[in-house]
Protein backbone atom coordinates (compact mmCIF):
# COMPACT_ATOMS: atom_id res chain seq x y z
CA UNK A 1 0.00 0.00 0.00
CA UNK A 2 1.14 3.52 -0.86
CA UNK A 3 0.25 6.24 1.60
CA UNK A 4 0.67 9.97 2.01
CA UNK A 5 -0.09 11.53 5.37
CA UNK A 6 -0.52 15.31 5.36
CA UNK A 7 2.25 15.67 2.80
CA UNK A 8 3.23 19.17 1.74
CA UNK A 9 5.99 20.31 -0.53
CA UNK A 10 7.18 23.87 -0.88
CA UNK A 11 10.21 24.98 -2.82
CA UNK A 12 11.68 28.37 -3.67
CA UNK A 13 11.22 29.55 -7.23
CA UNK A 14 12.47 32.95 -8.41
CA UNK A 15 12.54 34.39 -4.96
CA UNK A 16 9.17 33.16 -3.74
CA UNK A 17 7.90 29.93 -2.24
CA UNK A 18 5.81 27.70 -4.46
CA UNK A 19 3.51 25.05 -3.00
CA UNK A 20 3.64 21.89 -5.08
CA UNK A 21 1.63 19.72 -2.70
CA UNK A 22 -0.62 21.02 0.01
CA UNK A 23 -1.37 18.70 2.94
CA UNK A 24 -2.22 15.71 0.76
CA UNK A 25 -3.50 12.62 2.51
CA UNK A 26 -3.91 9.64 0.25
CA UNK A 27 -4.03 5.85 0.28
CA UNK A 28 -3.45 3.69 -2.76
CA UNK A 29 -4.15 0.06 -1.91
CA UNK A 30 -2.00 -2.74 -3.23
CA UNK A 31 -3.07 -3.70 -6.77
CA UNK A 32 -4.81 -0.39 -7.48
CA UNK A 33 -4.53 1.42 -10.81
CA UNK A 34 -4.64 5.16 -10.29
CA UNK A 35 -4.50 7.90 -12.89
CA UNK A 36 -3.39 11.30 -11.62
CA UNK A 37 -4.69 14.17 -13.74
CA UNK A 38 -4.64 17.91 -13.47
CA UNK A 39 -3.31 21.01 -15.13
CA UNK A 40 0.41 21.65 -15.55
CA UNK A 41 2.04 22.69 -12.30
CA UNK A 42 -0.71 21.11 -10.19
CA UNK A 43 1.76 18.83 -8.39
CA UNK A 44 1.26 15.57 -10.36
CA UNK A 45 4.93 14.87 -10.94
CA UNK A 46 5.84 15.91 -7.40
CA UNK A 47 3.42 13.27 -6.13
CA UNK A 48 4.97 10.64 -8.42
CA UNK A 49 8.54 11.57 -7.45
CA UNK A 50 7.65 11.39 -3.78
CA UNK A 51 6.21 7.89 -4.12
CA UNK A 52 9.41 7.00 -6.00
CA UNK A 53 11.57 8.14 -3.10
CA UNK A 54 13.19 10.82 -5.21
CA UNK A 55 11.81 14.01 -3.65
CA UNK A 56 11.46 14.49 0.06
CA UNK A 57 8.36 16.25 1.41
CA UNK A 58 8.57 19.51 3.34
CA UNK A 59 6.09 18.06 5.84
CA UNK A 60 4.21 14.82 6.35
CA UNK A 61 5.02 11.18 5.68
CA UNK A 62 5.19 9.00 2.57
CA UNK A 63 4.88 5.28 3.25
CA UNK A 64 5.30 2.15 1.17
CA UNK A 65 3.85 -0.94 2.85
CA UNK A 66 4.05 0.86 6.17
CA UNK A 67 7.69 1.87 5.76
CA UNK A 68 8.28 5.62 5.94
CA UNK A 69 10.27 6.23 2.78
CA UNK A 70 12.07 9.37 3.88
CA UNK A 71 13.07 7.95 7.25
CA UNK A 72 15.55 5.92 5.18
CA UNK A 73 18.83 7.38 3.95
CA UNK A 74 19.38 7.94 0.21
CA UNK A 75 21.21 4.64 -0.34
CA UNK A 76 18.47 2.61 1.35
CA UNK A 77 15.82 4.46 -0.61
CA UNK A 78 17.75 3.58 -3.80
CA UNK A 79 17.80 -0.06 -2.68
CA UNK A 80 14.06 0.01 -1.98
CA UNK A 81 13.41 1.58 -5.37
CA UNK A 82 15.49 -1.14 -7.01
CA UNK A 83 13.46 -3.82 -5.27
CA UNK A 84 9.90 -2.55 -5.36
CA UNK A 85 9.43 0.32 -7.80
CA UNK A 86 9.46 0.49 -11.59
CA UNK A 87 9.54 3.82 -13.39
CA UNK A 88 8.18 4.57 -16.86
CA UNK A 89 9.08 7.94 -18.31
CA UNK A 90 7.36 10.08 -20.91
CA UNK A 91 10.60 10.35 -22.92
CA UNK A 92 11.50 6.71 -22.13
CA UNK A 93 14.93 7.69 -20.74
CA UNK A 94 16.68 4.82 -22.42
CA UNK A 95 20.47 4.92 -22.28
CA UNK A 96 21.28 6.00 -25.85
CA UNK A 97 24.55 4.10 -26.28
CA UNK A 98 23.23 0.76 -25.02
CA UNK A 99 21.26 -1.73 -27.12
CA UNK A 100 17.66 -2.66 -26.25
CA UNK A 101 18.96 -5.79 -24.58
CA UNK A 102 21.57 -3.88 -22.56
CA UNK A 103 19.05 -1.25 -21.49
CA UNK A 104 16.88 -3.99 -20.02
CA UNK A 105 19.94 -5.51 -18.37
CA UNK A 106 20.75 -2.29 -16.45
CA UNK A 107 18.35 -2.86 -13.51
CA UNK A 108 19.34 -6.53 -13.44
CA UNK A 109 23.01 -5.52 -13.24
CA UNK A 110 22.17 -3.06 -10.46
CA UNK A 111 20.40 -5.90 -8.62
CA UNK A 112 23.56 -8.02 -8.86
CA UNK A 113 22.20 -10.64 -11.32
CA UNK A 114 24.99 -12.53 -13.12
CA UNK A 115 25.69 -11.99 -16.83
CA UNK A 116 24.06 -15.17 -18.12
CA UNK A 117 20.82 -14.62 -16.18
CA UNK A 118 20.79 -10.95 -17.16
CA UNK A 119 20.83 -11.89 -20.83
CA UNK A 120 18.26 -14.66 -20.45
CA UNK A 121 15.81 -12.49 -18.50
CA UNK A 122 16.31 -9.43 -20.71
CA UNK A 123 15.65 -11.48 -23.86
CA UNK A 124 12.54 -12.96 -22.25
CA UNK A 125 11.21 -9.52 -21.21
CA UNK A 126 11.81 -8.06 -24.66
CA UNK A 127 10.01 -11.06 -26.11
CA UNK A 128 7.08 -10.29 -23.83
CA UNK A 129 6.82 -6.74 -25.24
CA UNK A 130 7.18 -8.04 -28.79
CA UNK A 131 10.73 -6.95 -29.53
CA UNK A 132 12.49 -10.28 -29.99
CA UNK A 133 13.87 -9.11 -33.32
CA UNK A 134 15.22 -5.83 -31.94
CA UNK A 135 17.52 -7.03 -29.17
CA UNK A 136 20.69 -5.45 -30.56
CA UNK A 137 19.12 -2.23 -31.77
CA UNK A 138 20.07 1.01 -30.12
CA UNK A 139 17.23 3.37 -29.10
CA UNK A 140 17.97 5.63 -32.08
CA UNK A 141 17.31 2.65 -34.34
CA UNK A 142 13.87 2.01 -32.85
CA UNK A 143 10.51 3.76 -33.35
CA UNK A 144 9.13 5.72 -30.39
CA UNK A 145 6.61 2.94 -29.73
CA UNK A 146 9.39 0.37 -29.69
CA UNK A 147 11.45 2.60 -27.41
CA UNK A 148 8.58 2.76 -24.93
CA UNK A 149 8.28 -1.02 -25.08
CA UNK A 150 11.98 -1.35 -24.26
CA UNK A 151 11.39 1.05 -21.36
CA UNK A 152 8.49 -1.17 -20.19
CA UNK A 153 10.66 -4.27 -20.41
CA UNK A 154 13.37 -2.47 -18.43
CA UNK A 155 10.80 -1.37 -15.84
CA UNK A 156 9.68 -4.99 -15.44
CA UNK A 157 13.20 -6.37 -15.10
CA UNK A 158 13.17 -6.28 -11.32
CA UNK A 159 9.55 -7.42 -11.11
CA UNK A 160 8.32 -4.31 -9.27
CA UNK A 161 5.22 -4.27 -7.05
CA UNK A 162 4.64 -0.61 -7.81
CA UNK A 163 4.74 0.98 -11.26
CA UNK A 164 5.07 4.76 -11.41
CA UNK A 165 4.38 5.98 -14.93
CA UNK A 166 4.98 9.52 -15.99
CA UNK A 167 2.92 10.41 -19.08
CA UNK A 168 3.66 6.99 -20.58
CA UNK A 169 1.59 7.73 -23.69
CA UNK A 170 2.53 11.39 -24.00
CA UNK A 171 4.81 10.89 -26.99
CA UNK A 172 2.95 8.05 -28.68
CA UNK A 173 0.45 7.78 -31.51
CA UNK A 174 -3.08 6.55 -30.62
CA UNK A 175 -2.50 2.93 -31.68
CA UNK A 176 0.74 2.58 -29.78
CA UNK A 177 -0.82 4.37 -26.79
CA UNK A 178 -3.60 1.79 -26.77
CA UNK A 179 -1.07 -1.04 -26.83
CA UNK A 180 0.86 0.46 -23.93
CA UNK A 181 -2.32 1.03 -21.90
CA UNK A 182 -3.36 -2.57 -22.61
CA UNK A 183 -0.03 -3.60 -21.25
CA UNK A 184 -0.52 -1.53 -18.08
CA UNK A 185 -3.88 -3.22 -17.55
CA UNK A 186 -2.22 -6.57 -17.97
CA UNK A 187 0.42 -5.64 -15.42
CA UNK A 188 -2.27 -4.41 -13.06
CA UNK A 189 -4.16 -7.68 -13.46
CA UNK A 190 -0.97 -9.40 -12.31
CA UNK A 191 -1.50 -7.55 -9.03
CA UNK A 192 0.92 -4.67 -9.47
CA UNK A 193 -0.01 -1.22 -8.23
CA UNK A 194 0.04 1.31 -11.06
CA UNK A 195 0.17 5.07 -10.54
CA UNK A 196 0.05 6.94 -13.84
CA UNK A 197 0.36 10.67 -14.32
CA UNK A 198 -1.38 11.69 -17.54
CA UNK A 199 -2.94 14.52 -19.46
CA UNK A 200 -4.69 12.07 -21.74
CA UNK A 201 -8.38 11.69 -20.77
CA UNK A 202 -8.68 8.35 -22.59
CA UNK A 203 -5.64 7.02 -20.81
CA UNK A 204 -7.04 8.17 -17.46
CA UNK A 205 -10.31 6.39 -18.19
CA UNK A 206 -8.47 3.07 -18.39
CA UNK A 207 -7.51 3.37 -14.70
CA UNK A 208 -9.64 2.14 -11.80
CA UNK A 209 -9.39 5.45 -10.07
CA UNK A 210 -8.75 9.02 -11.14
CA UNK A 211 -7.25 11.61 -8.81
CA UNK A 212 -7.56 15.21 -9.89
CA UNK A 213 -4.97 17.58 -8.52
CA UNK A 214 -5.31 21.34 -8.60
CA UNK A 215 -2.78 23.65 -6.94
CA UNK A 216 -1.27 20.80 -5.00
CA UNK A 217 -4.51 19.50 -3.50
CA UNK A 218 -6.74 16.57 -4.44
CA UNK A 219 -10.02 18.06 -5.58
CA UNK A 220 -11.74 15.06 -7.09
CA UNK A 221 -11.66 11.35 -6.59
CA UNK A 222 -13.42 9.06 -9.08
CA UNK A 223 -13.55 5.28 -8.86
CA UNK A 224 -14.65 2.82 -11.52
CA UNK A 225 -16.66 0.47 -9.31
CA UNK A 226 -17.16 -1.98 -12.16
CA UNK A 227 -13.59 -3.25 -11.88
CA UNK A 228 -12.49 -5.31 -8.92
CA UNK A 229 -9.01 -5.30 -7.42
CA UNK A 230 -6.79 -8.11 -8.69
CA UNK A 231 -4.82 -10.53 -6.55
CA UNK A 232 -1.06 -10.20 -7.05
CA UNK A 233 0.18 -13.09 -9.12
CA UNK A 234 3.28 -14.73 -7.81
CA UNK A 235 3.84 -17.15 -10.67
CA UNK A 236 4.08 -14.63 -13.49
CA UNK A 237 6.95 -14.77 -15.88
CA UNK A 238 8.88 -11.80 -14.50
CA UNK A 239 8.34 -12.83 -10.92
CA UNK A 240 9.69 -16.27 -11.52
CA UNK A 241 12.79 -15.00 -13.26
CA UNK A 242 13.72 -11.75 -11.64
CA UNK A 243 13.39 -12.78 -8.05
Amino acid at each position, binding site marked *: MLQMRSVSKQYPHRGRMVTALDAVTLEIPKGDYVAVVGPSGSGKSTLLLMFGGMMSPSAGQVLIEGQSLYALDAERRAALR*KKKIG*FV*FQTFNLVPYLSAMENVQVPLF*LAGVDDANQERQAASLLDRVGLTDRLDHKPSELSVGQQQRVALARMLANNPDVILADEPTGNLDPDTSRDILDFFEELNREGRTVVMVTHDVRAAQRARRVLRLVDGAIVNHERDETRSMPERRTDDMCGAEAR
Partner: protein
Amino acid sequence: MRLRTIVWREIFERKNQLVTSFLAILLGISVIVSVKNITSYSEKAVARELDALGANILILPKSASLQDYYSSDMQDEEFPEEYVTRLATSDLQGLDNLSPKLSVPVDIQSRRVTLTGILPKNEFQAKASWQGAGIFSRPQGCGVVDVPGEAAPPAQETLVRRRVIDALGDTDALVGADVGASLGVKPNDTIQLLGKPFTVTAVLPQTGTVDDSRVFAHLHVVQKLAGKGPVVNAIEIVGCCNQISKGLVQKINQLLPEAKVVTITQIVDTQIKTNRMMSRLSVLFLGIIVLVGGASIANYMYANVFERRREIGTLMALGAGSSVVLRIFLLKALLLGLAGGIGGYVLGTVLAVVLGPRIAGVPVLPMLPLMPWALGVATAVSLLASYLPARRAARLDPCTALQEV
Protein backbone atom coordinates in the same frame (compact mmCIF):
# COMPACT_ATOMS: atom_id res chain seq x y z
CA MET B 1 26.31 -6.10 -18.50
CA ARG B 2 28.82 -4.88 -16.00
CA LEU B 3 29.90 -1.47 -14.83
CA ARG B 4 32.70 -1.52 -17.37
CA THR B 5 30.20 -2.24 -20.20
CA ILE B 6 28.40 1.01 -19.42
CA VAL B 7 31.68 2.92 -19.19
CA TRP B 8 33.20 1.35 -22.30
CA ARG B 9 30.09 1.85 -24.45
CA GLU B 10 29.78 5.48 -23.37
CA ILE B 11 33.43 6.20 -24.16
CA PHE B 12 33.06 4.88 -27.71
CA GLU B 13 29.68 6.54 -28.20
CA ARG B 14 31.12 9.97 -27.42
CA LYS B 15 34.75 9.41 -28.29
CA ASN B 16 35.09 12.70 -30.16
CA GLN B 17 34.46 14.63 -26.95
CA LEU B 18 37.11 12.60 -25.19
CA VAL B 19 39.81 13.26 -27.77
CA THR B 20 40.92 16.63 -26.34
CA SER B 21 41.34 15.29 -22.82
CA PHE B 22 43.06 12.18 -24.08
CA LEU B 23 45.45 14.26 -26.18
CA ALA B 24 46.18 16.59 -23.25
CA ILE B 25 47.21 13.72 -21.02
CA LEU B 26 48.93 11.80 -23.84
CA LEU B 27 51.08 14.74 -24.88
CA GLY B 28 51.78 15.78 -21.29
CA ILE B 29 52.95 12.31 -20.30
CA SER B 30 54.93 11.82 -23.51
CA VAL B 31 56.81 15.09 -22.92
CA ILE B 32 57.65 14.14 -19.33
CA VAL B 33 58.69 10.60 -20.32
CA SER B 34 60.76 11.99 -23.13
CA VAL B 35 62.48 14.59 -20.90
CA LYS B 36 63.08 12.06 -18.14
CA ASN B 37 64.44 9.51 -20.58
CA ILE B 38 66.82 11.95 -22.27
CA THR B 39 67.77 13.48 -18.92
CA SER B 40 68.61 10.10 -17.46
CA TYR B 41 70.95 9.22 -20.32
CA SER B 42 72.35 12.72 -20.39
CA GLU B 43 73.09 12.57 -16.66
CA LYS B 44 74.81 9.25 -17.13
CA ALA B 45 76.87 10.66 -19.97
CA VAL B 46 77.83 13.69 -17.87
CA ALA B 47 78.67 11.41 -14.98
CA ARG B 48 80.84 9.31 -17.25
CA GLU B 49 82.69 12.39 -18.45
CA LEU B 50 83.21 13.65 -14.91
CA ASP B 51 84.20 10.21 -13.84
CA ALA B 52 86.86 10.22 -16.53
CA LEU B 53 88.31 13.40 -15.04
CA GLY B 54 89.44 11.48 -12.02
CA ALA B 55 88.85 11.25 -8.33
CA ASN B 56 86.41 13.65 -6.80
CA ILE B 57 86.91 12.78 -3.13
CA LEU B 58 90.23 12.86 -1.35
CA ILE B 59 90.94 11.50 2.08
CA LEU B 60 93.96 13.18 3.60
CA PRO B 61 95.58 13.35 7.01
CA LYS B 62 93.79 15.75 9.32
CA SER B 63 96.33 18.60 9.02
CA ALA B 64 96.86 18.45 5.25
CA SER B 65 95.21 20.78 2.79
CA LEU B 66 94.14 20.12 -0.75
CA GLN B 67 96.59 22.79 -1.86
CA ASP B 68 99.46 20.98 -0.13
CA TYR B 69 98.46 17.77 -1.78
CA TYR B 70 98.56 19.16 -5.27
CA SER B 71 101.51 21.55 -4.86
CA SER B 72 103.94 19.20 -3.20
CA ASP B 73 102.29 15.99 -4.37
CA MET B 74 102.79 14.44 -0.97
CA GLN B 75 102.43 15.06 2.71
CA ASP B 76 104.71 14.31 5.54
CA GLU B 77 101.82 12.96 7.50
CA GLU B 78 100.40 9.55 6.98
CA PHE B 79 97.45 7.55 8.21
CA PRO B 80 96.86 3.82 8.51
CA GLU B 81 96.10 1.78 5.40
CA GLU B 82 93.39 0.18 7.51
CA TYR B 83 91.19 3.18 6.61
CA VAL B 84 90.86 1.63 3.17
CA THR B 85 89.52 -1.56 4.74
CA ARG B 86 87.09 0.49 6.80
CA LEU B 87 85.75 2.19 3.69
CA ALA B 88 85.64 -0.96 1.62
CA THR B 89 83.79 -2.94 4.26
CA SER B 90 81.35 -0.14 5.07
CA ASP B 91 77.82 -0.05 3.74
CA LEU B 92 78.33 3.37 2.18
CA GLN B 93 76.71 3.67 -1.24
CA GLY B 94 78.35 5.59 -4.05
CA LEU B 95 82.00 4.78 -3.40
CA ASP B 96 83.74 3.68 -6.53
CA ASN B 97 87.38 3.02 -7.26
CA LEU B 98 89.16 3.50 -3.96
CA SER B 99 92.78 4.33 -4.61
CA PRO B 100 95.08 4.49 -1.55
CA LYS B 101 98.44 6.15 -2.18
CA LEU B 102 101.74 6.53 -0.45
CA SER B 103 104.15 8.95 -2.12
CA VAL B 104 107.85 9.14 -1.39
CA PRO B 105 110.60 11.10 -3.15
CA VAL B 106 113.14 9.02 -5.07
CA ASP B 107 116.09 9.77 -7.34
CA ILE B 108 116.34 8.10 -10.72
CA GLN B 109 119.44 8.88 -12.74
CA SER B 110 120.08 11.94 -10.51
CA ARG B 111 116.58 13.20 -11.18
CA ARG B 112 114.11 13.59 -8.32
CA VAL B 113 110.69 12.12 -8.98
CA THR B 114 107.80 11.01 -6.83
CA LEU B 115 107.33 7.30 -6.33
CA THR B 116 103.70 6.59 -5.57
CA GLY B 117 102.59 3.30 -4.18
CA ILE B 118 99.17 2.26 -5.39
CA LEU B 119 96.99 -0.74 -4.62
CA PRO B 120 95.78 -2.65 -7.67
CA LYS B 121 92.17 -3.77 -7.87
CA ASN B 122 93.00 -7.46 -7.58
CA GLU B 123 94.34 -6.78 -4.10
CA PHE B 124 90.92 -5.63 -3.01
CA GLN B 125 89.27 -8.59 -4.58
CA ALA B 126 91.72 -11.01 -2.98
CA LYS B 127 90.69 -9.91 0.47
CA ALA B 128 87.90 -12.29 1.26
CA SER B 129 86.74 -10.28 4.23
CA TRP B 130 85.95 -7.37 1.96
CA GLN B 131 83.86 -9.39 -0.36
CA GLY B 132 80.11 -9.51 0.08
CA ALA B 133 80.02 -6.40 2.20
CA GLY B 134 82.40 -3.98 0.63
CA ILE B 135 82.80 -2.00 -2.49
CA PHE B 136 83.15 -4.93 -4.84
CA SER B 137 79.79 -6.34 -3.86
CA ARG B 138 78.23 -3.23 -5.34
CA PRO B 139 77.87 -2.59 -9.04
CA GLN B 140 81.05 -1.08 -10.34
CA GLY B 141 81.22 2.16 -12.23
CA CYS B 142 78.33 3.98 -10.58
CA GLY B 143 77.10 6.85 -12.65
CA VAL B 144 78.80 5.36 -15.66
CA VAL B 145 76.87 4.20 -18.66
CA ASP B 146 78.08 1.92 -21.35
CA VAL B 147 77.40 4.08 -24.34
CA PRO B 148 76.60 1.90 -27.33
CA GLY B 149 79.21 2.06 -30.03
CA GLU B 150 81.92 3.49 -27.79
CA ALA B 151 85.02 1.32 -27.33
CA ALA B 152 86.40 0.65 -23.85
CA PRO B 153 89.45 2.81 -22.97
CA PRO B 154 92.85 1.25 -23.61
CA ALA B 155 94.24 -0.69 -20.66
CA GLN B 156 97.17 1.60 -19.95
CA GLU B 157 94.78 4.55 -19.62
CA THR B 158 92.85 2.89 -16.86
CA LEU B 159 95.00 4.34 -14.13
CA VAL B 160 94.72 7.81 -15.58
CA ARG B 161 91.03 7.73 -16.18
CA ARG B 162 89.70 5.65 -13.33
CA ARG B 163 92.47 5.99 -10.71
CA VAL B 164 92.59 2.25 -10.47
CA ILE B 165 94.66 -0.41 -12.09
CA ASP B 166 93.56 -4.02 -12.25
CA ALA B 167 96.84 -5.76 -11.45
CA LEU B 168 100.36 -4.73 -10.57
CA GLY B 169 103.23 -7.07 -9.80
CA ASP B 170 105.79 -6.54 -7.04
CA THR B 171 108.48 -5.53 -9.55
CA ASP B 172 106.21 -3.67 -11.97
CA ALA B 173 106.40 0.08 -12.38
CA LEU B 174 104.23 2.50 -14.33
CA VAL B 175 105.99 5.65 -15.46
CA GLY B 176 104.35 9.05 -15.91
CA ALA B 177 104.64 10.71 -19.34
CA ASP B 178 107.12 13.43 -18.28
CA VAL B 179 109.33 11.03 -16.37
CA GLY B 180 109.31 8.59 -19.27
CA ALA B 181 110.28 11.33 -21.71
CA SER B 182 113.02 12.91 -19.61
CA LEU B 183 114.59 9.58 -18.66
CA GLY B 184 114.07 8.02 -22.06
CA VAL B 185 112.36 5.05 -20.50
CA LYS B 186 110.31 2.60 -22.59
CA PRO B 187 108.14 -0.35 -21.65
CA ASN B 188 110.12 -3.42 -20.51
CA ASP B 189 113.12 -1.24 -19.50
CA THR B 190 114.45 -1.76 -16.01
CA ILE B 191 114.79 1.13 -13.57
CA GLN B 192 116.21 1.26 -10.04
CA LEU B 193 113.91 2.55 -7.33
CA LEU B 194 115.17 2.76 -3.71
CA GLY B 195 117.80 0.23 -4.62
CA LYS B 196 115.46 -2.29 -6.20
CA PRO B 197 115.09 -3.05 -9.92
CA PHE B 198 111.64 -2.55 -11.43
CA THR B 199 110.36 -3.42 -14.90
CA VAL B 200 108.51 -0.61 -16.66
CA THR B 201 105.20 -2.18 -17.70
CA ALA B 202 103.81 0.98 -19.31
CA VAL B 203 104.54 4.65 -19.88
CA LEU B 204 101.31 6.47 -19.12
CA PRO B 205 99.79 8.92 -21.56
CA GLN B 206 100.11 12.64 -20.93
CA THR B 207 97.50 13.91 -18.47
CA GLY B 208 98.67 17.44 -17.73
CA THR B 209 98.59 16.63 -13.99
CA VAL B 210 101.17 15.77 -11.34
CA ASP B 211 100.72 12.15 -12.42
CA ASP B 212 102.97 12.94 -15.41
CA SER B 213 105.97 13.32 -13.11
CA ARG B 214 105.30 10.24 -11.01
CA VAL B 215 106.37 6.65 -11.04
CA PHE B 216 103.83 4.17 -9.76
CA ALA B 217 104.58 0.87 -8.06
CA HIS B 218 102.74 -1.54 -5.76
CA LEU B 219 101.74 0.16 -2.51
CA HIS B 220 103.02 -2.60 -0.27
CA VAL B 221 106.38 -2.69 -2.07
CA VAL B 222 106.76 1.10 -1.71
CA GLN B 223 105.82 0.90 1.98
CA LYS B 224 108.49 -1.73 2.51
CA LEU B 225 111.23 0.02 0.49
CA ALA B 226 110.54 3.37 2.16
CA GLY B 227 110.71 1.73 5.57
CA LYS B 228 107.18 2.71 6.41
CA GLY B 229 104.58 0.48 7.95
CA PRO B 230 101.10 -0.14 6.52
CA VAL B 231 100.38 3.55 6.00
CA VAL B 232 99.21 5.77 3.18
CA ASN B 233 99.05 9.53 2.86
CA ALA B 234 96.03 9.85 0.63
CA ILE B 235 93.05 7.88 -0.58
CA GLU B 236 91.56 9.03 -3.84
CA ILE B 237 87.98 8.03 -4.46
CA VAL B 238 85.68 8.35 -7.43
CA GLY B 239 82.38 8.93 -5.64
CA CYS B 240 79.01 8.89 -7.31
CA CYS B 241 78.11 12.53 -7.67
CA ASN B 242 74.49 12.04 -6.74
CA GLN B 243 75.60 10.22 -3.60
CA ILE B 244 78.00 13.06 -2.82
CA SER B 245 75.09 15.44 -3.06
CA LYS B 246 73.21 13.19 -0.64
CA GLY B 247 75.88 13.58 2.00
CA LEU B 248 78.47 10.92 1.15
CA VAL B 249 81.30 13.17 2.36
CA GLN B 250 79.68 13.62 5.76
CA LYS B 251 79.20 9.86 6.04
CA ILE B 252 82.86 9.25 5.24
CA ASN B 253 83.75 11.88 7.84
CA GLN B 254 81.74 9.95 10.42
CA LEU B 255 83.42 6.72 9.41
CA LEU B 256 86.93 8.21 9.48
CA PRO B 257 86.83 10.96 12.10
CA GLU B 258 90.64 11.10 12.31
CA ALA B 259 91.03 11.94 8.60
CA LYS B 260 90.16 14.92 6.46
CA VAL B 261 87.66 14.37 3.64
CA VAL B 262 87.86 16.79 0.75
CA THR B 263 85.55 17.03 -2.23
CA ILE B 264 86.70 18.52 -5.46
CA THR B 265 83.70 20.74 -5.45
CA GLN B 266 83.87 22.23 -8.92
CA ILE B 267 83.62 18.83 -10.51
CA VAL B 268 80.82 17.66 -8.29
CA ASP B 269 78.98 20.95 -8.46
CA THR B 270 78.90 20.83 -12.24
CA GLN B 271 77.06 17.57 -12.20
CA ILE B 272 74.86 18.46 -9.29
CA LYS B 273 73.85 21.65 -11.07
CA THR B 274 73.14 19.75 -14.28
CA ASN B 275 71.10 17.16 -12.40
CA ARG B 276 69.25 19.87 -10.54
CA MET B 277 68.44 21.72 -13.74
CA MET B 278 67.15 18.55 -15.39
CA SER B 279 65.10 17.58 -12.39
CA ARG B 280 63.63 21.11 -12.24
CA LEU B 281 62.73 20.78 -15.90
CA SER B 282 60.93 17.51 -15.14
CA VAL B 283 59.11 19.12 -12.23
CA LEU B 284 58.12 22.00 -14.50
CA PHE B 285 56.65 19.65 -17.06
CA LEU B 286 54.97 17.66 -14.31
CA GLY B 287 53.37 20.88 -13.12
CA ILE B 288 52.21 21.65 -16.63
CA ILE B 289 50.64 18.22 -17.12
CA VAL B 290 48.95 18.40 -13.73
CA LEU B 291 47.53 21.83 -14.48
CA VAL B 292 46.76 21.63 -18.20
CA GLY B 293 45.94 17.92 -18.38
CA GLY B 294 44.05 17.99 -15.09
CA ALA B 295 42.08 21.09 -16.04
CA SER B 296 41.21 19.62 -19.43
CA ILE B 297 40.01 16.37 -17.88
CA ALA B 298 38.08 18.14 -15.12
CA ASN B 299 36.45 20.39 -17.69
CA TYR B 300 35.53 17.44 -19.88
CA MET B 301 34.18 15.47 -16.93
CA TYR B 302 32.03 18.37 -15.70
CA ALA B 303 30.60 18.73 -19.22
CA ASN B 304 30.07 14.98 -19.40
CA VAL B 305 28.23 14.92 -16.07
CA PHE B 306 26.05 17.84 -17.19
CA GLU B 307 25.26 16.16 -20.49
CA ARG B 308 24.44 12.85 -18.82
CA ARG B 309 22.41 14.18 -15.91
CA ARG B 310 19.19 12.64 -17.23
CA GLU B 311 20.95 9.33 -17.75
CA ILE B 312 22.31 9.53 -14.20
CA GLY B 313 18.84 10.37 -12.90
CA THR B 314 17.43 7.41 -14.82
CA LEU B 315 20.04 5.07 -13.35
CA MET B 316 19.16 6.37 -9.89
CA ALA B 317 15.45 5.91 -10.59
CA LEU B 318 16.30 2.32 -11.56
CA GLY B 319 17.93 1.88 -8.17
CA ALA B 320 21.55 2.87 -8.67
CA GLY B 321 23.07 4.25 -5.48
CA SER B 322 25.48 7.17 -5.49
CA SER B 323 28.44 4.78 -5.21
CA VAL B 324 27.53 3.16 -8.55
CA VAL B 325 27.37 6.56 -10.24
CA LEU B 326 30.67 7.60 -8.63
CA ARG B 327 32.31 4.39 -9.86
CA ILE B 328 31.02 4.89 -13.41
CA PHE B 329 32.83 8.22 -13.69
CA LEU B 330 35.95 7.18 -11.79
CA LEU B 331 36.31 4.02 -13.90
CA LYS B 332 36.09 6.18 -16.98
CA ALA B 333 38.79 8.46 -15.53
CA LEU B 334 40.93 5.41 -14.74
CA LEU B 335 40.62 4.11 -18.31
CA LEU B 336 41.44 7.57 -19.65
CA GLY B 337 44.50 7.75 -17.38
CA LEU B 338 45.70 4.25 -18.31
CA ALA B 339 45.28 4.91 -22.04
CA GLY B 340 47.01 8.30 -21.69
CA GLY B 341 49.78 6.76 -19.59
CA ILE B 342 50.50 3.87 -21.96
CA GLY B 343 50.21 6.06 -25.06
CA GLY B 344 52.29 8.78 -23.43
CA TYR B 345 55.01 6.30 -22.46
CA VAL B 346 55.20 4.86 -25.98
CA LEU B 347 55.16 8.26 -27.70
CA GLY B 348 57.58 9.79 -25.17
CA THR B 349 60.00 6.89 -25.54
CA VAL B 350 59.92 7.12 -29.34
CA LEU B 351 60.52 10.88 -29.10
CA ALA B 352 63.41 10.37 -26.67
CA VAL B 353 65.09 7.69 -28.77
CA VAL B 354 64.70 9.69 -31.97
CA LEU B 355 65.38 13.20 -30.64
CA GLY B 356 67.72 12.38 -27.72
CA PRO B 357 70.90 12.08 -29.82
CA ARG B 358 70.08 15.35 -31.58
CA ILE B 359 69.11 17.35 -28.49
CA ALA B 360 71.49 16.05 -25.86
CA GLY B 361 74.07 14.43 -28.08
CA VAL B 362 73.78 11.13 -26.29
CA PRO B 363 72.35 7.82 -27.46
CA VAL B 364 69.04 7.13 -25.66
CA LEU B 365 67.47 3.73 -25.09
CA PRO B 366 63.92 2.97 -23.87
CA MET B 367 63.57 2.93 -20.07
CA LEU B 368 60.98 0.40 -18.90
CA PRO B 369 60.90 1.78 -15.32
CA LEU B 370 59.30 4.92 -16.73
CA MET B 371 56.23 2.87 -17.78
CA PRO B 372 54.76 2.40 -14.26
CA TRP B 373 55.76 5.96 -13.47
CA ALA B 374 53.87 7.27 -16.54
CA LEU B 375 50.84 5.11 -15.72
CA GLY B 376 50.88 6.26 -12.11
CA VAL B 377 51.06 9.96 -12.95
CA ALA B 378 48.47 9.76 -15.75
CA THR B 379 45.93 7.81 -13.69
CA ALA B 380 46.52 9.94 -10.59
CA VAL B 381 46.01 13.17 -12.55
CA SER B 382 42.96 11.75 -14.32
CA LEU B 383 41.37 10.39 -11.12
CA LEU B 384 42.06 13.53 -9.09
CA ALA B 385 40.75 15.80 -11.84
CA SER B 386 37.63 13.65 -12.20
CA TYR B 387 36.87 13.22 -8.54
CA LEU B 388 34.88 16.42 -8.04
CA PRO B 389 32.82 16.00 -11.25
CA ALA B 390 32.21 12.35 -10.31
CA ARG B 391 31.11 13.36 -6.83
CA ARG B 392 28.79 15.94 -8.32
CA ALA B 393 27.27 13.21 -10.50
CA ALA B 394 26.86 10.92 -7.49
CA ARG B 395 25.08 13.68 -5.58
CA LEU B 396 22.84 14.62 -8.49
CA ASP B 397 19.19 14.97 -7.65
CA PRO B 398 17.45 11.99 -9.30
CA CYS B 399 14.38 14.18 -9.90
CA THR B 400 16.20 15.58 -12.93
CA ALA B 401 15.20 12.37 -14.69
CA LEU B 402 11.56 13.42 -14.53
CA GLN B 403 11.96 17.14 -14.90
CA GLU B 404 10.37 17.23 -18.30
CA VAL B 405 6.88 16.69 -16.77
